[in-house]
């Protein structure tokens, strides 16, 4: 099957070095201390963080650092055919462990001894790259909860099909049987915290593919910064436009901000322009 056409377009019309459209939203789960929804193309993931709070199982308490627990599950309706066992199977346990180790590397656990931080990640729609979307959502949720972190962890995947390195594989490309490299980095510090690969790759091609995935991670980190920047820019935009909107007295839940970003083209940093519709996005 042809995954990259002779004109250089993939199955969904993207270029080989082009990422899917990403979108992040904070504060989706009102009850959680921090939460976020993260979308990469059709893959949609929700993360909720609880903590730091008292350790529920005294025997697991660590005296010098916080205990980080992570649970990954897929909703029954997330894949094409309804799944029968969303949690507890081998793949979910493995991904839970991977996300826990990645986030533990960036949380400053020694500042919160004898406490517990719970990260729950659930996939609402799966279209390839769920692992990466989960890590990105968990980073946003941890930042929303105000848990001290060394840096933002972002993650992206890349593969190699038809002799082309491809960035951000979707489900069809992922199931093609080719190699799939998932990289997670600490964005500003430029350190790798997660590196996984399926199948085999020659060493020189592996370096190219990994570098491509790292560029994807950095692009996501730039856009995550814009999410927080947006949160306080919006009221200023309101004042410039001179509009003051009516507010309804309801029992209001915390405000959340939506941002939209354009696909990342390698070598050409895309400008994030403020679409007109953003000024009307209500911030609660």
């Amino acid at each position: 099957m042809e995954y990259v056409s002779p004109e250089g377009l993939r199955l969904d019309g993207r270029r080989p070095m082009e990422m899917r459209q990403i979108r992040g939203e904070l504060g989706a789960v009102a009850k959680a201390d921090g939460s976020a929804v993260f979308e990469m193309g059709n893959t949609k993931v929700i993360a909720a963080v609880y903590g730091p709070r008292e350790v529920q199982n005294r025997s697991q308490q660590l005296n010098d650092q916080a205990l980080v627990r992570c649970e990954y599950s897929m909703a029954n309706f997330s894949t094409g055919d309804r799944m029968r066992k969303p949690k507890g199977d081998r793949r979910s346990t493995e991904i839970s462990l991977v996300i826990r180790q990645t986030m533990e590397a960036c949380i400053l656990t020694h500042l919160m001894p004898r406490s517990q931080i719970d990260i729950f990640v659930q996939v609402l729609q799966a279209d390839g790259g769920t692992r990466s979307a989960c890590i990105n959502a968990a980073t946003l949720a941890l930042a929303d909860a105000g848990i001290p972190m060394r840096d933002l962890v972002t993650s992206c995947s890349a593969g190699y099909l038809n002799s082309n390195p491809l960035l951000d594989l979707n489900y069809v490309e992922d199931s093609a049987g080719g190699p799939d490299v998932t990289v997670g980095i600490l964005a500003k510090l430029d350190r790798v915290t997660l590196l996984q690969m399926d199948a085999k790759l020659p060493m020189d091609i592996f370096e190219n593919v990994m570098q491509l995935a790292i560029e994807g991670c950095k692009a996501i980190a730039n856009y995550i910064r814009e999410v927080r920047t947006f949160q306080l820019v919006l009221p200023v935009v309101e004042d410039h436009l001179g509009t003051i909107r009516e507010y309804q007295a309801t029992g209001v839940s915390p405000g959340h901000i939506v941002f939209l970003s354009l696909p990342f083209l390698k070598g050409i940093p895309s400008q994030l322009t403020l679409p007109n519709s953003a000024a009307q996005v209500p911030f609660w």
Partner: protein
Amino acid sequence: MDERPLTSPTSFVDHIVVPGDVVLNLSSMANHTIKLGGGLRQDCDAISVMKAGKLRFSKPNKYWVESSQKRYVPCVEDTILGIVVDSKADNFLVDIKGPALAFLPVLAFEGGTRRNIPKFETGTLLYVRVVKANDGVNPELTCTDASGKAAEFGPLKEGYMFESSTGLSRMLLSSPTCPVLEALGKKLSFEIAVGLNGRVWVWADLSSVGRFSVNAASPSTVILVGNAIMSSESLSGVQQRIMVEKLLQRIQ
């Protein structure tokens, strides 16, 4: 859009920062003493951000990150609202929305002796002050002020308590008076207790709706004040006043 020139460190002040941003480079500032507040940490020569929020600077040399969360980090001398969870022989266990349960010694009241230990049921709301707050150790509270008087500390009876974020509590306690409280105070009379851990307690009796001072609750005023405060977190001063006006128009 927010442009952020990346050259000088002072350009980060009053801007949103996310974890990992390096806001100061100490190698370029020799012989300076810098005080770091919450949300910042030192990594060899770089000062980097731990929590997402707004970077603030106060002269001569204090930097900190102002952020608003649902969880509370206990700090000495903070006044907070706690809920009694359990009572032991020498302490009450109080939930303060922090990483650990806090202890309130049974004698930490004005004129407290072994003979007149107060009896608090589970679920009692208390207005307390933090005395000790260290990492990994349960914080300690007290119901007296520094000189041993009760001041306003102790159980809060009746009224309505709601939870919000720490940022909202700080805004309500800022001076000069926060615009939403000022606007509400011009038309209504109510009592309010703000805990720095994100809990706010409101109480109003019927005198606020124009009757004489009757000792009976006025639920409509309490709910109005509560909703006004909850909606005011992300609004500027002018927007808060407009919101309160619209709310008050609805009940009159």
